[in-house]
C-alpha cells in the first residue's frame, strides 16, 4: 500500500522536474545561467490559471486531445515499476495495454492538431504518426527481449528480471535494446536529434507544432503530460540500464529518483552536443533503433 502511494506521488509530482533539469544542463553547456530548476512547475501553474482561447473551427476533439493524453499517460505510468517496488497495476499482458495507451494518446493528439485546420499542425501530426510506425515495432522488439529473459508477460516481472538474474549471456541483448529504447525515448519525448522543442521555426517541429493552437489550461495539461511521458519512458530505459551499474540494489531503492534526474541530465547533454537531424533523415535513426532492438532479440534466441 505504501509503495503504491509513493508510486502515485512520484508519478504526479516529479515529472516537471525532468524538463527543468534538461534546460539547466543545456544552459550550463551554453555558459548561461538558465531558468530556475523548477521553471516547468511555474509554467504549468501559470497556464492552468489562464483563460480559455479556442479556434472557431474546432470541435470536442480539440479538448479530447490533451485530456485523453494525460489520462492515458497516467494509467500507463501506473504500470511501470519505479525502482524495486512493484507497479500498482500489474497483470498478465499489461504491457500491451501500456503500448496501446500511448497509441490512444497519439490518436487524439494528432486528431486535435488536425482539428484546427492549420497546415503547420497538420505537418506536425503527419510526422508524429509516421515516426511512430518505426518506434512502436522497436518497442515491441524490446518487449520480446525482456519477455524472453524474464519468462513473464507483465511489465513488473519483465523489468525486474534483468537485475535479479543478471548474467553475461543476457548482457549483449540488454545493451542493444538499451540503445534502441533510448532512441525511442528521444523520439517519443520530442528531443534533439529528432525534434527540437526550442526552435523558432514552426515548419521544422513535430510536437510543438501540433499544439500551436492550444493555450491556457489545455496547454498546461499538454506540458504536464509530456513531462510525465518522459518519466514513464525514462523509467523503462533505466530499468534496463540498472543491472549494468555498480551497486544496483541500492540504486533501485529511493536512489532511483537520482537516476531519473541523471537521465534527464544525459538527455540535456545529448541535446547540447548534437544538432537536430534533417526531417527526412529521422526515419534512418528510428530504423536504427528498430535494428538495435531486433538484433538484441536475435542474439537472445540464437
Amino acid at each position, binding site marked *: 500500500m505504501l509503495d503504491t502511494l509513493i508510486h502515485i506521488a512520484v508519478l504526479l509530482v516529479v515529472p516537471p522536474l525532468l524538463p527543468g533539469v534538461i534546460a539547466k544542463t543545456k544552459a550550463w553547456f551554453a555558459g548561461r545561467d538558465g531558468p530556475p530548476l523548477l521553471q516547468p512547475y511555474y509554467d504549468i501553474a501559470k497556464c492552468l490559471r489562464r483563460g480559455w482561447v479556442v479556434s472557431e473551427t474546432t470541435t470536442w476533439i480539440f479538448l479530447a486531445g490533451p*485530456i485523453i493524453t494525460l489520462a492515458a499517460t497516467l494509467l500507463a505510468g501506473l504500470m511501470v515499476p519505479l525502482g524495486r517496488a512493484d507497479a500498482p497495476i500489474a497483470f498478465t499482458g499489461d504491457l500491451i495495454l501500456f503500448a496501446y495507451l500511448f497509441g*490512444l494518446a497519439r490518436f487524439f493528439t494528432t486528431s486535435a492538431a488536425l482539428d484546427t485546420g492549420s497546415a503547420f499542425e497538420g505537418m506536425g501530426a503527419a510526422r508524429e504518426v509516421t515516426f511512430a510506425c518505426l518506434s512502436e515495432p522497436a*518497442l515491441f522488439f524490446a518487449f520480446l527481449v525482456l519477455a524472453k529473459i524474464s519468462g513473464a508477460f507483465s511489465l513488473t516481472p519483465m523489468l525486474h528480471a534483468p537485475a535479479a538474474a543478471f548474467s553475461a549471456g543476457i548482457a549483449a541483448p540488454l545493451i542493444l535494446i538499451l540503445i534502441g529504447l533510448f532512441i525511442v525515448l528521444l523520439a517519443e519525448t520530442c528531443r534533439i536529434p529528432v525534434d527540437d522543442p526550442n526552435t523558432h521555426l514552426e515548419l521544422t517541429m513535430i510536437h510543438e507544432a501540433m499544439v500551436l493552437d492550444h493555450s491556457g489550461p489545455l496547454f498546461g495539461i499538454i506540458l504536464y503530460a509530456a513531462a510525465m511521458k518522459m518519466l514513464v519512458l525514462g523509467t523503462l530505459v533505466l530499468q534496463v540500464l540498472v543491472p549494468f551499474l555498480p551497486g544496483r540494489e541500492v540504486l533501485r531503492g529511493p536512489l532511483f529518483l537520482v537516476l531519473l534526474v541523471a537521465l534527464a541530465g544525459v538527455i540535456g547533454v545529448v541535446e547540447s552536443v548534437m544538432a537536430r537531424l534533417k526531417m527526412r533523415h529521422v526515419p534512418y535513426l528510428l530504423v536504427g533503433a528498430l535494428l538495435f532492438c531486433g538484433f538484441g532479440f536475435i542474439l537472445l534466441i540464437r
Partner: protein
Amino acid sequence: MGVSGGAGYLFPSRSALGQCVVAVLLTCGSAVGLSGCLLSLTGCWALPSALNHAWSIPGCRFAVGLDALSAVFLLPVFVLPALGAWYGLAYWRAASHPANARRLGAAYGALAGAMALVVIARDGVLFLIAWEAMALAAYFAATVEDDRKEVRRAGWIYLVATHAGTLCLLAFFAGWRHATGSFMLEAAPGMPVAAAAPLFLLALVGFGFKAGLMPAHVWLPGAHANAPSHVSAVMSGVMLKMGIYGIVRAVSLLPVGEVWWGGLLLAVGAVSCVGGIAFAIGQRDIKRLLAYSSIENVGIIALGLGLALTGRASGRDDWVVLGLCGALLHVWNHGLFKGLLFLNAGALIHATGTRDMEVMGGLAKRAPRMMMLFAVGAVAICALPPFNGFVSEWLLYAGFFCAVGVKGAGELPAVSLAAVALAMTGALAVACFVNMLARVYLGTPRSETCRHAHDPEALMLWPMVLLAGGCVGVGLFPAAVMMPLEAAAAQWGSDGMVLSGMMRAVPFSRLSMACFALAALTAALVFLLDRTRRARGVRVGPTWDCGYARPTARMQYSASSFGDGVVGLASFLLWPRRCRTALRGLFPRASSFKGLVPDTILDRLVLPAFRAADRFLPRLRVMQQGRTHVYVFYILAIMIVLLLWGGAGSH
C-alpha cells in the same frame, strides 16, 4: 432470407412498401436464425445438431449441421445484413432508384441466405453450390449501378477472381473425395500428412481469394468501392469471413499438419496486414481506403490462425486457444466496426455526393452524430483501448508472447516476430484513421456540397448506433463473449489436447477494470476542466496558423500530404505514382501535382498477365469454329480418351 428479395417483384418498381416488405422478411429470417444461433451458443440447445438427407442432385446429399464453429460465423450473417437492409431503405430508396432497387433487394437477400448455407453445409457439393450462389449474389448486388464503366470493370475483376478461387476449391473437394471416399465434410484424422498438405494449400489459395489475403486481394478494393454502401458493409464485414470460415473448417477436418503450414499462414497474414494498411493510407477514396483496411484486418485474423496452426502442429494448446480465439473474436469485431464505418461512409456519400475525401472536411459541425459514430469506429479499428479491437489483438499478442517462451518448453521464437508486424500495423492504422477522421470531419469544408451536409435520418443512424454499441460493449466486457469462441476453438483440438477452460486464466476482469479506470480518469479531468471553463469563459477566435491572418480551406494539410510520409517509407511496396509539371525559368507558369497509389499487384502483375494471355491465346481459336457437330466430336473424342485412360488404370 435467401428469397426475401423475391417479394419485392410483387410491387411496382418505385414502391417503398415493396422495399419495406423485403426488409421485414429479411429481418424475420435473420431473427429466426439468430435465435437458434444464440440458443446453441449459450448451450441451451445441445450441439451438434444436424440433418442429412439424400437429394435428387447426383453425388450430393442435403447435409447441414450446426456446431460451435458454424454458430460463431453465423452470428454476423444474421446481424449485419438485417441492419444493412433497414439502412438500405433510406440509402437506396426505390423512388430514386426505380431501375435497380428490386434487383438489389433480391441479390442482397440471396447473398445473406447463401452465406448462411455456406456456414452450415456439411456436404462438399452442397457447400460449392452455396459458395457459387454467394459469389454470384454478391456480384449482382455489387454491380447494381452497371451503367457506370468503373462498376462494370470492378464487377468483372471480382467475377474472374472469385472463380479463380472456386477453381481451387473444386480441386480441393475433388482431392477430399479422393482421400476420404466421400464428399461429406467429416473430420479425417487418419489421413496421411503428405496427402493433407496439398489439400491445405488448395484450401488456403481457394478460400484466400474470397478472404482477400494478399496477393489474392486484387478484386477487393474495386468491388467494395463501387458497391452500394450497405452491400460493401456486408461484403467486407461478413462475406470476406466466409473465406476465413473455409480455412478454419478445412483445417479442423484435416489431420494435424506440420509447422510450416502455420508459418505460411503467418507470413501471408503479416504481408496482408502491413501491406493492406500501407495501401489504405495512400487512398483518397473513402471506400477504397476502408476496403484496403479490410485486407489489413483479414491479415490480422490470418496471423491468429497461423499462430493456432503452428501450435496445433507443435502440440502447444495455449497457442491454439489464444490464436484461434483472437482470430474468431476479430471476425466478430471486424464485422462490427467495419460495418459501422462502411455505413458511415455511405451516409457521407449520401450527404456530399462524393467519395473523395480531399473535397470533404468540417463535417463535424454539420453532422455531429455521424462524427461521434465514426470516431468510435476509428478508435475501435485501430485496436485502441477501451474498444473491442483491442481485446482481440490483445489475445493475439498474448499468444505471440507465449511463443517467445514465456511458459514452458516447446518454444518457437520466430513465431513471436508476428507481434512486431502487428505492432507496426497498429501504428499504421492510427496514421490511416486519424487521417480519414480529420480529412472528412475536422477542419473547414473544402467544397460547397460539404457546407450543406447534415446528419442522416434515423433509419440510417440507428443501425450505426447499434454497431457502435457492440464495439463498446465487447471492449468493456470481453469476458462475456469468450465462452462460444472457446467452444469453437475446441474444433482444432487433437488427441491429448485440453482446450476448454483455458480462457479462465486470462485476466479479462483486470483488462476491463483498466479500461474503466481510463474512462474514470478521463471523466475526472473533463469535470475539473469544465469547472475552470465555466469560471473563466471561453474566447473564440480564428485558428492561429502562425500569425497568418487569412487562412483558406485549401491551405489545410490534405490527406495525400498527411499520408506522404508513410507512403514514402513504404514506397518499395506501394510504388506510388507522381505526376508534376516541371518549373522552368524565373517566372514559372501555373503548375500542378498529382499523386496516387494504384494497386501494385493488379496493375503491374495481374493485368499485364491477362493482356499477354489476350495476345497469345487467340491462336487457340482454331479449335472454336462455332459448328455444333465439331463440339460434339470433341466430346466423343474426350470420352474415348477417358475410357481408354480409365481402362488402363484399372488393369
